[in-house]
C-alpha cells in the first residue's frame, strides 16, 4: 500500500505535462476545433512517436505494457491541456476493449499509430442487431454519440447476436454504413451517428461472440480514465481562475483578495483534490482487478469516480466562468472551452444519477433488510 506516484510515474506526468503544455493547449484546440476533422494529424503523429498509443498495450504487441494508473496520469494531463485527439477513442476505448476481451488483434496497429479506432457499445445510444448470413453477418440499426465515429479508421461495434452481445470490427467504410459527425456545443469531442442499413460483414469481422462481460470491464476502466481527464481539466480551471483573479483589480484590490472569491477557489481545490483521490483510487482498483475479477469493486470505484469527477469538473468550470466575471463569458478567454467540455463529459459513459443508482444497488440497498433495529 503506497498511494503516491512512483518515480517512473512522476516522469510520465512531467513528460506529458511538458509536451502537452507546449504543443497541445487550448490555443491548439482553437485551431483544430473549427475544422471538419477536429484534430491535427501531424501533432498526433508526434504523440504516437512518444509511445502514448501503446501505453497500455502489452510489450509483445509493441506497447509499453503499463497500467491504468499510468493511463490515468496521461489522460489527466490531456484534460489539463484540453487536447483534441483520437486518443480517448483509440486507446481508452478501443485498445482497452480489445485487451479486456483478450484478443491481440489490432493492438499492434494501434500501438504503432497505424490506425485510429473507436468503440460503439454501451457507451453509445441506440442498438445494432446482427444476424448470421452465409459466410458472415448482416448488421442493422443505429447508434448515436459514438466518439470519433465519423473519423476513426477502425470501428469496434457491439451488436445483439441471438440475445448475446457480440463485438465486430469494421475497417473503414463498408456498403450500407453511413457515418455522420454530429455538430456539438463542445468542440473538443467528436461524436457521430452510425447507421447500419443491411451491412454485410465477413465472418472474420467477429471479434467475440459473447463480449458482454469484457465490454463491461472495458467501459468501467474507460470511465475511470475519463474521470482522470476531468481531474486535469478541473485543476486547469482552478489555476486559470487563481491566476486571473490575482491580476484583476476591482475596488482597488486584486479580486483574489476577496473572501468570496477565495472561498470559491477553496471549494474548487476541494473538488479537484477529492476528485484526484477518487480517480486514482479507481485506477488502482482497475489495475488490481485484472480481466477476471468479479468486477464489483471496479464497478463501485468506476461509478464513484466518474460521477464525482465529472461533477467536480463541471462545478469548477462553472465557478471559473463566474469568477472571471465578464471575460469568462467571452469566446476569447479559454474558460468556455472547458465549460462546454465539462458539460459534455458529464453525459459520457452515464450521467451522475445513473452511476449513483448503480452504486446504490451494488452496496446492497435492494438486499433484504436485516433483523429490525
Amino acid at each position, binding site marked *: 500500500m503506497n498511494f503516491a506516484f512512483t518515480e517512473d510515474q512522476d516522469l510520465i506526468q512531467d513528460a506529458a505535462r511538458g509536451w502537452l503544455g507546449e504543443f497541445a493547449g487550448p490555443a491548439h484546440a482553437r485551431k483544430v*476545433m473549427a475544422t471538419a476533422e477536429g484534430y491535427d494529424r501531424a501533432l498526433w503523429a508526434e504523440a504516437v512517436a512518444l509511445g502514448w498509443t501503446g501505453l497500455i498495450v502489452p510489450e509483445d504487441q509493441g506497447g509499453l505494457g503499463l497500467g491504468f494508473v499510468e493511463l490515468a496520469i496521461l489522460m489527466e494531463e490531456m484534460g489539463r491541456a484540453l487536447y483534441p485527439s483520437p486518443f480517448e477513442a483509440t486507446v481508452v476505448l478501443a485498445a482497452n476493449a480489445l485487451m479486456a476481451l483478450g484478443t491481440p488483434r489490432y493492438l499492434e496497429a494501434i500501438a504503432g499509430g497505424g490506425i485510429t479506432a473507436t468503440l460503439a457499445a454501451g457507451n453509445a445510444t441506440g442498438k445494432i442487431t446482427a444476424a448470421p448470413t452465409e459466410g458472415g453477418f448482416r448488421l442493422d440499426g443505429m447508434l448515436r454519440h459514438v466518439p470519433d465515429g465519423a473519423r476513426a479508421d477502425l470501428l469496434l461495434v457491439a451488436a445483439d447476436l441471438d440475445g448475446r452481445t457480440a463485438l465486430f470490427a469494421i475497417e473503414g467504410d463498408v456498403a450500407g454504413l453511413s457515418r455522420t459527425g454530429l*455538430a*456539438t456545443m463542445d*468542440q473538443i469531442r467528436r461524436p457521430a451517428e452510425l447507421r447500419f442499413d443491411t451491412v454485410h460483414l465477413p465472418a472474420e469481422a467477429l471479434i467475440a461472440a459473447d463480449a458482454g462481460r469484457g465490454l463491461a470491464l472495458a467501459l468501467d476502466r474507460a470511465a475511470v480514465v475519463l474521470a482522470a481527464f476531468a481531474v486535469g481539466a478541473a485543476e486547469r480551471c482552478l489555476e486559470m481562475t487563481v491566476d486571473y483573479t490575482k491580476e484583476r483589480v476591482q475596488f482597488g484590490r486584486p479580486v483574489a483578495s476577496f473572501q468570496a472569491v477565495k472561498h470559491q477557489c477553496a471549494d474548487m481545490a476541494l473538488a479537484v483534490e477529492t476528485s484526484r483521490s477518487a480517480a486514482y483510487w479507481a485506477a488502482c482498483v482497475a489495475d488490481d482487478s485484472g480481466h477476471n475479477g468479479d468486477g464489483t469493486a471496479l464497478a463501485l470505484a468506476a461509478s464513484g469516480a466518474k460521477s464525482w469527477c465529472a461533477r467536480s469538473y463541471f462545478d469548477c468550470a462553472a465557478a471559473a466562468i463566474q469568477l472571471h466575471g465578464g471575460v469568462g463569458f*467571452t469566446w476569447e478567454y479559454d474558460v468556455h472551452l472547458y465549460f462546454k467540455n465539462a458539460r459534455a463529459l458529464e453525459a459520457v459513459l452515464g450521467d451522475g444519477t445513473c452511476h449513483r443508482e448503480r452504486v446504490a444497488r451494488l452496496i446492497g440497498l435492494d438486499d433484504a433488510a436485516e433483523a429490525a433495529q
Partner: protein
Amino acid sequence: MKLSFSADDEAFRAEISGWMADNLTGDFASLKNRGGPGDEHAFFEERRAWERHMGKAGWTGVGWPKAAGGRGAPLSHQVIFYEEYARAGGPGRVGHIGEGLAGPTIVAFGSEDQKRRFLPGILSGDDLWCQGYSEPNAGSDLANVRTRARLVGDRWVIDGQKVWTSLAHVSDWCFVIARTEEGSSGHKGLSYLLVPMKQKGITVRPIQQMTGTSEFNEVFFDGAETAAENIVGKPGEGWKVAMGTLAFERGASTLGQQMAFRNQLDEIIAIAKANGRAKDPVMRQRLAEAWIGLQIMRANALRMLSQAEKPELPREAYVSKLYWATWHRDLGKLAMDVLGPEADVFPGEPGTYELTALQQLFLFTRSDTIYAGTNEIQRNIIAERALGMPREARA
C-alpha cells in the same frame, strides 16, 4: 393582501391578449418568441418595425405617467400587459432600454425640454437607446468609472470606454455615466449624459461571447460630443440619477421576463415528457423545484411591486436579482440534463456553430449571474444595505 385580479383587470387582459392575437400575425408571425437574451440579433429590422407598430397602437410606455405620453396604467394592468405580451410569444423589445430605463429617468430627473425632445421618440419606437455604465476596469462598480467628459464651449467632449453595452451598434442614443470633475473619485464628480451614437467619435466593437454570437459590445468614446444641455440633473449628480435608473429595474416588465422563463420551463417539461425523463424520480424533483421556484419568483416580484410606493427598498427587492439570475442559470443546466446526451448536439455540420434555443439558454444564462452586479456583488449589497452589516473595505 390579495393575489387575484378584478373584473376590470380581466377586461384589460382580454384587450391586450386580443390585440396580440390580432397583430402578431402576417409579417410579424415569424417574430414569435424571438429576440430575447442570447437571441438579440434575430430579425432585428422586423422587430424594430414591430416596436413602431406597438407604439402606434399605444402599447409602449404602458406604465409611464399619462403626462409623459404613457398609459398611466395601474400596477395590475402593467403586470397583465407584460405577462400577456410574453405569453403570446411577443418578441424581445428593441426599445426596452429606452422604455424601461432612459425614459423613466428622463421623466423623473429630466428637464421639461428633455422630456419634449426624447420621450416621443422612445414611445414611437423611432429612437433606440443603450446604456453606458460598465467599464473594463469598473466592472459592476460605478464608483470606478474613468470615462471623462469636458465641457468645451456648448458641447460635452467625451473620452473613454464602456463595455457590455447591449444594442450599441443599432442604438440612436446612449446614456453615459462620465466623470466631469477633474480629479474626482468614487461617486462624486459623475454626470449623466445623453449622447447620440451615430457620430465619428464613437466606435462600437462587438464582443464575441461563448455562444458564438455578440449581444454585447465595447463602445469607444474618442472625442465624442453631445450638446451641453444633454445632461440629466446637474453636473456631479450622475450617481444620484444612475441610482434612480437602477430603481426602475424593479418595474412590472420583470413579470414579462418571468413569463418568458415560464415558456422555457414549459419547453423543457415537454421534452422531458417526450424523451421519458419525466418519469425519472430525481428529474421530477428538479422539474418540480424549478416550477415552484418560478411561482415564488412571481410572488416575490408582486410583493416588491405592491410596495413600490414605500421610500425604502424592501428586502424582497434586494434579493430579486440574485434569485432570478441563479434560478435561470440553474434552468439552463436543467435543460441540458433533461436532454441527456442529445444536449450537446445541434443541427448542422461539425465546425459550424448554430446553437438551439435551449443551448443558447444554457450558455447565455451564465451571464445572468455576472452582468448588472455579479452574484457576489449582489450578496454584498444584501448584507450591507438590507442587513446593515459592515461595508467591504475598499482600498
